[in-house]
């Protein structure tokens, strides 16, 4: 495992698609290579922070009702 391969596998690592052997190799490399360890931690934290950048909104029940009424009218008048 070298640094280039290591960083190329970060994405698959987060997707949980790597074999156990490869995960061990990757962890082993990161335990010895400070640069890749930091790179991986900040890469995965970037993904985590992106997830929190927006709070999911809910469309209000009234708006859904209004939309549904409009759509049903349109559907039946086709």
């Amino acid at each position, binding site marked *: 495992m070298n640094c280039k391969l290591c960083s190329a596998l970060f994405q698959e690592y987060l997707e949980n698609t790597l074999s156990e052997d490869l995960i061990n190799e990757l962890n082993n490399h990161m335990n010895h290579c400070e640069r890749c360890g*930091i790179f991986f*931690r900040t890469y995965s934290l970037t993904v985590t922070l992106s997830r929190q950048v927006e709070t999911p909104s809910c469309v209000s029940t009234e708006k859904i009702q209004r939309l549904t009424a409009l759509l049903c009218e349109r559907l039946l008048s086709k």
Partner: protein
Amino acid sequence: MSNTKDKLSDAALVIRIKDDDSKALEEIVKRYSNKVYNLAFHLTRDASAAEEIMQEVFLTVIAKIATLTNEAYFATWLYRVTTNAAYGFLRKEKKFSDQPSVDDMNQDQSPTYDWSTLPDDILLSEESSSVLRESIDSLPETMRTIVIMKDVDGFKNEEIAQSLGLSVPAVKSRLHRGRLILRRTLSDYFRKYSDASGEDV
């Protein structure tokens, strides 16, 4: 009656909508309105545009549902209609049209500062969120859409690929490059906290 509809698959509901079944349409709206709204909102950053897009998307569903030959692809078709409507809005408003130069993609800077150990109040501050949001908005259009769909809204790679008409590897490579750009922006931003702690940079 809605109890039995709840158990129907999307494909079964779509077949009923093709037969002008308004209850099936209601169920589809209930199932997907929040997803469509959030995706439109995150792509446009405009709540009233997102509402209009949501309405436009479902009107398109009614108008074009007959052209959807494989009912199982309903969800990705819906997301494709949503992203296209959002792009239409962004073009009209000329929002986020600045493309970063190739230099911005250069991610060779050595990541020597470990900001992952910073406390949550710094990592999750309003300021760091807005730095990240601005960085997402400055990504090239398709990359920005992919990052929003995957990392902000939690869509699957396959759903994103089908919605955008790209291959899964193409989605993954843009996602990875996008994340590298965001990571670098955050590294630059958080670096000021390494100075404060007296560490050598």
